[in-house]
């Protein structure tokens, strides 16, 4: 059963991020140096295919309904990874009238990858840790 944890599908949602973390995420998957496809990962365009949800941004009031919708649509078991300081603690945007974060108000966050933006190595490490947690969740579901 552990073999299926080598096929995580990733979905990323930007909840009002400055795009710094998104650029890191995109480069992590794409550029030659940091290749997450070697872990078997694949970016999907739909949360319904996803196993690992990567959230960037401090969850603005405008983006909150979409985030909740995405969280509803994820098939179980799934793992949530907060990428960057913003979803972890809202960072410098904390206590703003337009911010409804952090992420752990809405869902149990499994892995936090702090940094502004985090280094690609840190993101890959976060995804690898998420795979371990995902394996545990699959075992618990059985």
């Amino acid at each position, binding site marked *: 059963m552990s*073999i*299926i944890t*080598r*096929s995580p*599908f990733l979905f990323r949602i930007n909840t009002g991020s400055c795009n710094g973390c998104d650029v890191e995420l995109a480069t992590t998957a*794409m550029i*030659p140096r940091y*290749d997450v*496809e*070697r872990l*078997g990962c*694949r*970016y*999907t*365009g*739909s949360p*319904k*295919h996803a*196993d690992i949800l990567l959230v960037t941004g401090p969850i603005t009031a405008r983006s909150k309904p979409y985030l909740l919708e995405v969280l509803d*649509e994820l*098939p*179980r078991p799934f793992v949530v990874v907060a990428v960057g300081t913003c979803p972890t603690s809202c960072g410098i945007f904390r206590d703003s009238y337009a911010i409804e974060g952090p992420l752990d108000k809405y869902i149990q966050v499994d892995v936090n990858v702090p940094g502004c933006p985090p280094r690609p190595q840190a993101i890959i490490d976060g995804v690898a840790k998420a795979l371990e947690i995902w394996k545990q969740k*699959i075992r618990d579901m059985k």
Partner: protein
Amino acid sequence: MSANILNFFIFPGGLFAVFFGLILISIERIMVARFQGRVGPVFYQNVIDIVKLFNKETLIPKDAKDFVFKFAPLFGFSGMLVLVYFLPVPGVYEGAKGDYDLVILIYFMALPAISHILGGGASSSPYAAISVSRELKLMLVYEFVFIVIGFTLAIYVGHGNGEFSLKKIMDYQMQNGYFLFDWKLWPAFIAFLIFVLATLEVPPFEVAHHNHADIMEGYLIEYSGAPLALFEITDALKIVVLSVVFQIFFFPNVIGGDVVVNLLWFIVKTMFLVVFISLAHACLASFRADQEFKFLIKVPVMLSLTSLVLVILSIKGLI
């Protein structure tokens, strides 16, 4: 009778084709990664993906047409499964030996696209609706190209009368030289390669599917779990079917009479097609939907019609 069942479920249909196709898709992913300077996944990555998807929860949207949504993937899957059983593999497998199997091939080739259209249409997502309308438009063009190519070969082999048996098309090439080396059919060959790219929806024809910037996953957006796995298996079978069709149409070469050697040779020829597909995937950008439609209706249609005209002229003895 039992040999037929074996052929349908184990080899060359069924299990063998599914695993072979899944490994081909994984190899395509590895090739794309290597072209881009990455390492890429393992060679059995898509098999793991399928196993995982069968273990995942299946979600059905509230507004979806339940029955069509669930059973649309089966439509394309069964079509491709039958086709793998039906087609002769040069030197390896005799096929179902029909006299009109080219017509059946043309019919069944459209089934995966129809299952995409049914599934996407039933899934009640606006993204799926856009993707379905694009797929429908493009399908009309590339299926037309495929029909013209098949018709051209049928006329050429039958010397003016349509010869719709794939076995006879292969035998004709064994005796008179392969169509790959026949200049009259070179335009049709290029059109066929474009058809392969268009029907597999790899770039530059990636407008209805996997186009994350534009329509997300297209018609697959609402699918999860086992139906999604069936769609992926259909893609895998389709790549096998396209390779077999390519070899029947243009290069049914065999080495001796040994089945194992011929199977290896078949796999080597298939690899060439996969390398071509991954090269196109790695180095071409995607068209917009309208550009793709214009391109398909101009270039491959014209190329295949050129071949048809050349073949008719050669039968009349004019060239």
